């Protein structure tokens, strides 16, 4: 019962952050302007057309990245497995950069060439990194991280190649977007990301039992009745679609998938029936909060949110790597 209380608190807190963040900024929007709207009020326009869409995009992206991180951590049985550290974000970035370079911006059925490229890149990267870790019988943290570093290097060099062959304008666009930013106007971008994150989350929710068993090991999971191969393929597709679409819109925002699932595991435990909703809610609020800091700390300059999350995530990563194992650790 106490856990459902926790989840209720997570939900209330998460939506409170989502709705209050757009009030904050160089121009403070008074709550009154939202509750009692006056026609053509500039404060209300800032709220509805600029800041709320941006907060929504941050929330959806944060939720998706955190859930993807949680899934990788279950599959690799390692708290340091995330879309960013495994090079999946790099793969998605490469796919998206190719899309930008080839001018595939136009959308077919709601998916632009850039987004499709990012999804394919993410899937390619996770397949490579998983294959690399499977070459060793006992996959240690070191092997996994090195495989991630190798995949990161590989795709970074490919991104440089794409940039090198691109013209000045495209190079600048790719560079800015690689910093991870949420600059946008209107609800187009949030609506583009939403269906994939919703679909991915539903797929993950359908596999919470499998995620629990994968956490304790693939051999034990099969002996309990999990069709491990099929489930892993589904999880790879679900996470690649989420990470791909998020990266193609927001850039490779790092470390959300590292910090959020870990903090949630400390609070609600390892059972994915509780961990998944907690991670989605926390991840969403976390990125909204980070973005609010990023766009107000050096106002009127708006920092790309990716710079801020990496600033937090680097030390967090080191702490996770160096600290002795304890509560919330996947396995010792």
């Amino acid at each position: 019962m106490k856990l459902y209380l926790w989840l209720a608190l997570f939900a209330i807190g998460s939506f409170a952050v989502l709705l209050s963040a757009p009030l904050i900024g160089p121009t403070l929007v008074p709550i009154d302007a939202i509750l009692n709207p006056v026609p053509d009020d500039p404060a209300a326009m800032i709220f509805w057309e600029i800041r709320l869409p941006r907060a929504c995009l941050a929330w959806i992206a944060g939720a998706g990245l955190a859930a993807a991180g949680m899934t990788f951590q279950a599959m690799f049985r390692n708290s340091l497995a995330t879309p960013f550290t495994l090079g999946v974000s790099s793969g998605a970035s490469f796919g998206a950069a190719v899309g930008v370079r080839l001018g595939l911006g136009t959308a077919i059925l709601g998916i632009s060439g850039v987004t499709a490229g990012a999804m394919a890149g993410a899937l390619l990267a996770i397949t490579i990194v998983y294959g690399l870790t499977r070459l060793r019988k006992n996959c240690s943290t070191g092997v996994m991280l090195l495989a991630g570093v190798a995949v990161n290097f590989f795709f970074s060099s490919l991104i440089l190649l794409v940039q090198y062959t691109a013209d000045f304008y495209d190079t600048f666009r790719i560079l800015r977007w690689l910093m991870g930013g949420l600059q946008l106007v209107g609800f187009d971008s949030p609506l583009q990301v939403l269906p994939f994150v919703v679909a991915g989350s539903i797929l993950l929710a359908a596999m919470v039992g499998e995620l629990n068993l994968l956490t304790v090991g693939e051999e034990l999971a099969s002996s309990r009745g999990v069709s491990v191969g099929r489930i892993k393929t589904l999880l790879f597709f679900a996470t690649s679609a989420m990470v791909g679409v998020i990266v193609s819109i927001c850039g490779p925002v790092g470390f959300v998938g590292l910090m959020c699932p870990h903090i949630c595991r400390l609070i609600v435990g390892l059972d994915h029936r509780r961990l998944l909703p907690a991670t989605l809610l926390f991840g969403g609020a976390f990125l909204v909060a980070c973005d609010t800091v990023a766009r107000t700390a050096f106002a009127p300059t708006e920092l790309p949110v990716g710079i801020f999350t990496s600033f937090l995530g680097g030390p967090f990563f080191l702490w996770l790597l160096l600290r002795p194992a304890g509560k919330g650790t996947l396995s010792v």
Partner: protein
Amino acid sequence: MIETALVIESLSCSIGGKEILRDISARIGVGETWSVIGANGAGKSTLLKCLMRIHTGWTGSAQLLGRDLASYSQRELARRIAYVPQPGGDQRFQFTVREFVRMGRYAYSGPFGTAHPGDSDAIDSALKRSDVEVFADRTLGTLSGGERQKVFIAAALAQGSEILLLDEPTAFLDYRHQAEVADILQSINRESNGTIVTVTHDVNAALATGGHVLALRDGAVAWTGTTDDLVCEETLGRIFGATFRFIDDPVTGLRLVAPQGAAR
């Protein structure tokens, strides 16, 4: 009435290009107790993993309760066979004992991880039969090796399967926990007519368990029979490549095996 739990016919298995099992055949009846013995690397663990379909690339055929093993889905398989892995691996998860045992009910769960009506009874009875109720709310990481092994058996029992496969269940355990695990397995066999297949390299453990023996050497069947016939210097020498001496226990009347050294 099905009388054979498992019929294995010329099972062969290669992993990474290396042949681990070669032409294994065996017939395991319902309610029987089997010990799979052999030296390290003889393929004992691999045989269990092939039957549990953890390894899938094997050839040959197997009938499980009168039906081709290949026709079972992994979920159906898990309702018939439960598996207890070799202890000593990375098994110190931060799940509580109850959470971990509940995961044994996966094969009965509905979509989105919803519970089956029989779950809580099966979990409670499994915790009770393995005598781990007292630490049901502790995390696996805080238990001793012996306690953890009983929890793994409880999780396998929660699966509600007729056949139990165990890989070296008493290796690394102290004498008290060895005896407790042996008692739990005996009661499963006696009270619910469970079929038990245990992999062990300890001949004395196999002799104490009694029942049937499947001996492997270098991936092939070296000998098969009952434990009564196993106590023979020539047979054991052939299985293990070592020489043995026998001691009669004056209290139980059982024969004990004492290894003498490598065969020359």
